[in-house]
């Protein structure tokens, strides 16, 4: 977009590189796609079904609303673009392109996805078995391993962020809450992340420094949900959530989790019914349909003390993946891949629980909070 001579150059036209390459590239990318219909709208984005001109390959275009944002590019989109640009993996949603539209909005072009695990779990007409669960778990763990290998925490693992392509390949999606943990010893991370039912105890206790184990725990809860076909640890407040966890997995104490009492929000959530941390036998009683190896993996992913939880790689090496029934091939996995189900991509836009960028409260107040938070860490 070269400045027409004589007109007042706006900042944006002045910033176009001398060679115009970047602007040309933007134009080229924009022209590459054709928007079809709107398939979802949320507070911060509109998702369109679109296709590549020429090949007809379906894609999803996320148009990020920016005009109303007083803080510039929203953190959701900045995080998502930042991390998806670097994370190229079969089991992570592929960010194909980013471009600026005519109205100066950011458009993220993502590969088209057919549905998510939440849809499969809820749809009682779909029958699935251990081989299918194994396949979804293996693919989720591979994607998660790659995130962690690249020093990225997803921070919002849950069934409706685990999507699949029309050929059944699982993709971890929605990196709007992701962050890097490359700087060691950061003690100023927010604990207000991960949707409540999947939030690990260390975050509920307000830990300011945490690692990949949070995602492993969330995926462990998803694992249990895949088996039970109902949300496993469902509570409606943070306090209740701790209680539900303590009743299912044991009461966190210095005994089973050295140091836990020093966390800022530590409390004993079930004082009248304190329980030791569950062992393998207990997990087997709760999940009688699982093999020993399966129960062992689940137990390893759900340890109270994050230091005792298995890592994504270790989890992948579990014998459960090697025993019968072997993981189902992606193309043979259940799940409707018809047109109506493709709309799933667009439905993932409701404001999340556990979001650290809440827009309630006045701007001034928020400013104060942020300033305090920043100063605290410096």
């Amino acid at each position, binding site marked *: 977009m070269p400045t027409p001579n*004589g007109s007042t150059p706006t900042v*944006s036209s002045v910033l176009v590189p001398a060679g115009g390459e970047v602007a040309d590239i933007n134009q080229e990318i924009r022209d590459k796609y054709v928007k079809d219909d709107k398939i979802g709208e949320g507070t911060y984005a509109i998702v369109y079904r679109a296709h590549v001109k020429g090949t007809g390959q379906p894609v999803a275009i996320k148009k990020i609303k920016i005009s109303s944002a007083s803080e510039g590019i929203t953190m959701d989109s900045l995080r998502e673009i930042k991390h998806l*640009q*670097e994370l190229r993996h079969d089991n992570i949603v592929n960010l194909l392109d*980013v471009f600026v539209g005519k109205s100066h909005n950011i458009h993220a072009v993502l590969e088209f996805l057919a549905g998510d695990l939440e849809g499969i779990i809820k749809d009682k007409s779909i029958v699935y078995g251990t081989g299918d669960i194994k396949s979804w778990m293996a693919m989720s763990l591979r994607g998660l391993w790659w995130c962690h290998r690249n020093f990225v925490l997803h921070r919002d693992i849950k069934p409706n962020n685990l999507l699949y392509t029309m050929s059944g390949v699982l993709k971890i999606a929605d990196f709007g809450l992701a962050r890097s943990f490359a700087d060691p010893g950061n003690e100023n991370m927010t604990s207000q992340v991960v949707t409540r039912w999947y939030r690990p105890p260390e975050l509920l206790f307000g830990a300011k420094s945490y690692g990949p184990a949070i995602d492993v725990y969330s995926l462990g809860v998803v694992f249990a949900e895949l088996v039970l076909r109902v949300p496993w640890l469902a509570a409606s407040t943070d306090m209740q959530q701790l209680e539900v966890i303590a009743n299912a997995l044991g009461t966190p104490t210095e005994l089973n989790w050295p140091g836990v009492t020093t966390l800022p929000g530590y409390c004993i959530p079930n004082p009248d019914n304190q329980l030791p941390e569950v062992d393998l036998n207990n997990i087997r009683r709760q999940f009688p349909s699982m093999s020993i190896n399966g129960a062992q993996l689940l137990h390893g992913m759900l340890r109270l003390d994050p230091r005792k939880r298995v890592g994504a790689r270790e989890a992948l090496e579990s014998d459960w993946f090697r025993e019968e029934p072997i993981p189902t091939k992606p193309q043979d996995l259940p799940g409707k891949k018809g047109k109506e189900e493709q709309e799933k991509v667009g439905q993932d836009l409701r404001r999340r629980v556990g979001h650290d960028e809440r827009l309630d409260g006045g701007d001034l107040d928020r*400013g104060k909070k942020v300033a305090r938070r920043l100063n605290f860490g410096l």
Partner: protein
Amino acid sequence: MEDETYLGSTQYRYFTFTPSKLSQIRQRTNQLATQHLNESIQSAIQAGDLSDSGQDLLEREPLTAEEELKLVSYYITQSVAICDHFRTGSAVKATTLIFLQRIYLRISPLQIHPKTLLLPILYLAFKSENGVTSASWFIRTAAEAGLTITREELLTPEIDLAMNLRWAFQVLHPYRGIEGVKLELLAMQAGTYRGPAGETAPPFEGTRDRIERACGRARILLTGPALCTDVYFLYTPSQIAMAGIWVQDGGLIEYFLGVKIKDEAVRQRLLKVIRECGERHLLATKDAPNPYPGLLLRLPQNGVPISVEIPPELKKEAVRIDKKLFHLKKPLKEAKGKHPPATDTSEEERRAKKRKLEKENRDKDDVFGGGGMIKRKQ
């Protein structure tokens, strides 16, 4: 595996060059911007917007690529001072400086003056590294240092900055690697090191203190002066990390690589690269022979000081180049004055008044040592 991760990064794909390619890009940016400026002046002459006869305007000495490089270098040092005022910490500071360098690869100061982008770039780096950052807090903190910027001026360039960064917000910082090398060296020194195959390290002749000291100094180098050089464009993060330690204590790195890399030929090749990075860039001095004849690199040999401290001669140079730049663009500004945008005038006047007032206060109490280089000329 190491390479696969790095080769997939945007840092490698978009921002890694050979020395001659890096030089070419800068030359071309300068040429195209000069050409563009002349074309704009020409059309202003044709439109009769210039009081000047015009022809001599086109024959003025253009801004050279070397001058652009010096000017940007000066603003890099200014940016360091601003980061220090914001107490950003190493990650935000390093990302800010690298964003600034990446943007001025394909944008010329003839198009947009670096001083107008320093704060928007810092704000973007804050968001990318730390997450939610309140614009109000940012503007207030900037004001404490006498830097006035409106919310609009801060946020308007954001999308264009992002586009020019090719939507790559992640910067792989070599200083992060120092800590890992240090821990491994300490384990080798203590005799507790075990390689991937369980092998031990040959005994290390030296104290823990020697390791701590070299690594501590390397970190200071890589979070300071090294950010003013071209090393991020030319070397991998691990090569830079090694070179950072190598310039403090060559023996340490030779020992370390001896433990890590058994293949003599590979080790020698690596050492050569590390030595080159150290000698030509991190340790470069004004009087050393230029190792890249005819090339334009940010090296003291090319008159570009490599230091976070602002040497008086650079400041003098920057003032001179700034003036030259101002005069080169002046006719265009006058031309624009002939067709003033109707609504902006009063707003401009109001701001000019405000700026003048603030400048008077600022000069009395300037954390950047006076001179008002950051103030806006208009």
